[in-house]
């Protein structure tokens, strides 16, 4: 499209949503209307296919991003370091620390005593000689051969806010669009009755950091691309229900009447915002039906509920949100963002991390199995990642069964599975201390570039022009990692 036209188009969209957000409320401002607007905004172009869409035929059509907020300990979950058991309580050697900056939570400690994981590990067969997983992930172990474990993830941030922002937007400073917003912008909606980018939050067990709504914000992209938060109690989507006393028939008549007036006005003023506004109201009307159907688990059989575990019956748990994620995926929602809070274990880690894994382990394995048997795993990309890992040395007192760990950005484990990802591999390696990467480092930009590739995008060409330059999710770097691709 001509850049000048594009500019004006985005201006009008922004203005419209800015207004809509104040007049109708955040719930509606958050709805994604990509395809509807694509049709109605551009007068006369009604019949064309949307401009966006994958650059090449994608493997994955949608994403389920399981963000583990707080920074899970790679050393107690995925990065097996048996030698550390013979270095118990030794000091972290300078030759390993290499002057790495620490947070002020531990930089004042006189000693940095090595805290080997107290958990037993088991080797699960995969295509690269097996992957060692902690005993506290018994269910994840059953699907290890579907997963690509990246043991050599690194980030630049050492604190939660910039760390999460980096993973979500490709930049540590707030203000850029979230990954999900980029997908909404690039792929558009595949179900005009539901949001394109859905967000769900599970409260964790321990220390929890704030989760800012801007993590799923659309930055400078039109605000139709921002994430829509599905709440676990009360109405899943705010401001969707009709007020008491108003029936669906009343609502329909009201919409028809307003619609007729709007149409008259649109014909006279040719203002595209009017069409967009009508489309938005119609979508809200449809969501009044589609959202309750979505969140009602009564059509799930007992065996499926059992797969996810008992928690699935409690709204808002990670298990319930995983099942909801599957239902959203089935219904064509493009980007499903789950947050699991509470991985920030500075002290009492062994006890607390088990509460966390008990909440996620069965459910995340169930999600993979459930998608797989429904034929959806091949086209659904799953990412499991925290914003960083945790230190090999103990924060605070160290005993064999109790220790804490501080934030560690320099090396940690994340995993991906499903659409377009090589199943059953371990990629990258850390040193004997799980502190530095010794093989195949993966930056956040590399990860994003690789995930975009499975979704059919050349990360250098998925751009949005803002303030005179083209912005990308991967900023100015990033490399597709072929070994991670199926």
């Amino acid at each position, binding site marked *: 499209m001509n850049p000048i036209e594009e500019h004006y188009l985005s201006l009008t969209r922004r203005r419209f949503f800015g207004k809509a957000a104040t007049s109708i409320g955040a719930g509606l401002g958050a709805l994604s209307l990509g395809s509807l607007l694509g049709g109605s905004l551009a007068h006369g172009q009604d019949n064309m296919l949307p401009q966006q*869409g994958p650059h090449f035929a994608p493997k994955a059509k949608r994403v389920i991003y399981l963000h583990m907020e707080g920074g899970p300990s790679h050393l107690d979950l995925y990065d097996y370091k048996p030698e550390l058991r013979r270095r118990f*309580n030794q000091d972290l050697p300078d030759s390993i620390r290499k002057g790495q900056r620490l947070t002020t939570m531990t930089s004042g400690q006189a000693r940095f005593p090595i805290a080997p994981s107290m958990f037993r590990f088991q*080797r699960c067969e995969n295509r690269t000689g097996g992957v060692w997983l902690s005993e506290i992930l018994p269910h994840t172990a059953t699907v290890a051969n579907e997963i690509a474990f990246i043991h050599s993830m690194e980030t630049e941030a050492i604190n939660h806010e910039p760390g999460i922002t980096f993973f979500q937007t490709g930049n540590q400073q707030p203000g850029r669009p979230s990954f999900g917003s980029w997908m909404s912008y690039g792929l558009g909606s595949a179900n005009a009755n539901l949001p394109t980018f859905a967000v769900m939050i599970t409260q964790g067990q321990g220390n929890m950091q704030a989760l800012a709504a801007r993590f799923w914000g659309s930055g400078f992209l039109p605000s139709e691309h921002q994430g829509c938060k599905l709440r676990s109690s009360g109405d899943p989507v705010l401001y969707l229900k009709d007020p008491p006393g108003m029936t669906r028939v009343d609502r329909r008549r009201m919409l028809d009447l307003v619609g007729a007036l709007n149409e008259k006005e649109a014909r006279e003023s040719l203002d595209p915002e009017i069409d967009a506004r009508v489309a938005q109201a119609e979508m809200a009307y449809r969501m009044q039906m589609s959202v309750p159907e979505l969140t009602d688990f009564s059509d799930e059989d007992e065996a499926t509920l059992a797969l996810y575990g008992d928690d699935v019956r409690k709204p808002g748990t990670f298990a319930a949100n995983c099942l909801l994620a599957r239902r959203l995926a089935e219904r064509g929602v493009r980007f499903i963002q789950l947050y699991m809070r509470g991985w920030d274990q500075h002290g009492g880690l062994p006890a607390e991390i088990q509460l966390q894994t008990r909440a996620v382990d069965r459910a995340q394995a169930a999600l993979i199995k459930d998608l797989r048997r429904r034929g959806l795993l091949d086209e659904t990309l799953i990412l499991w990642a925290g914003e960083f890992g945790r230190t090999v040395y103990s924060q605070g007192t160290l005993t064999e069964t109790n220790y804490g760990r501080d934030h560690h950005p320099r090396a940690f484990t994340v995993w991906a599975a499903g659409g377009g990802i090589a199943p059953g591999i371990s990629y990258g390696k850390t040193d004997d201390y799980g502190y530095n990467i010794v093989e195949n480092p993966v930056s956040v930009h590399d990860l994003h570039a690789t995930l975009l590739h499975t979704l059919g995008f050349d990360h250098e060409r998925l751009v949005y022009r803002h303030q005179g330059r083209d912005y990308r999710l991967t900023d100015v770097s990033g490399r597709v990692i072929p070994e991670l691709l199926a």
Partner: protein
Amino acid sequence: MSARWTVLALSLAAACQSGEVRDSLAPTRESAYEVVIAPILRERCVGCHGSERAKGGLRLHTPEAIRAGGSMGAVVVPGNVGASELVRRLHLALDDDEHMPPDDKPQLDAAQIATLERWIAAGAPYEGPVDGLVAPQKAPAPTKMAAADPAALSALRNELVHVQAVSQGSHALWIDFAAIAPRTDDALVERLLTPLKSQTSELALARSKVGGATLAFCGRLPALRKLDLRDTKVGDAELAGLGAQPALEELVLARTAITDASVETLLALPALRSVHLWGCQLSPDALARLRAKPTLRVDFGDTPDTVIAEVEDKPKFTSELPSPDLPPAGDPSAPVNAKCPVTGSPINPKYTRTFEGKVIAFCCPNCPGEFDTDPAKYAAKLP
């Protein structure tokens, strides 16, 4: 559109040759150089680096020429991507004079670069397969496909049916009825898709009410590659309507009424390489017959759990391994002790004192001072 070579493991080629039902590992048996690498070089480099011309003294049209390198020597270092000049040049900024191909020429895409890197990382072999490098299947040639009728696309959208080009520049369509699945029936599908018969490439009808008429209609869609009928009432009689649909590669029938009677129908689909049948009434015998077809991957929801190969014993904790920062034993600066004489914790070689000619190490910066208050007492605790 020229054929694109990309990194694919789970492809028709791999599945065909593996002889396994589900084996995404199987590499192509063909020479990866011949089928994947040479075509990229031919398409993008050989014009300037081939038999006609040798810019920079470099030719890339034969294995010998690639091995010979250019004016500055080797450009491909087998097994070492980072040291390979050829790769370095691909990654340079477009406006860098050394960037290849020169900025006014068609560029490699990220997948092609990744492919070259993977080949070099694998030792740049000129014969035999490389894990993960296979020729992708050529998508149904979009050049032969006419553009979809705009009115038909509008009709779909008006009904809230999702429609999208499979990729930019392609006329092939992915059509998904998810938004209106509960009210999607045979009549609606036929009405909306009749004008899009030749473009419909991926069709999702999951959770809908479609039946035999839709299946018979799908049997007449020449470009239909993927069909999703999950959670529908489709049974054997309906499925038979597909006939020998020539293009269908992926079929999702999870939680449908399919039984053993559909085995023949499935085996008769010539291009079918993946079928999902979880929740269907299939006997072990019928499954075995389907799984006997080497090119077909059959998912019956019975994928076994990952094998646990080894479980570690309950860990014991010691500090017997020497710190890597410790000077080697015998070195005059090596401490004589492994435990801090003040606290009993493992020593940190950073904090030491020399006492009576011996180097003594401590656990932390505070202990040397404590030692100084009563050296004799602490020295007595040394080995």
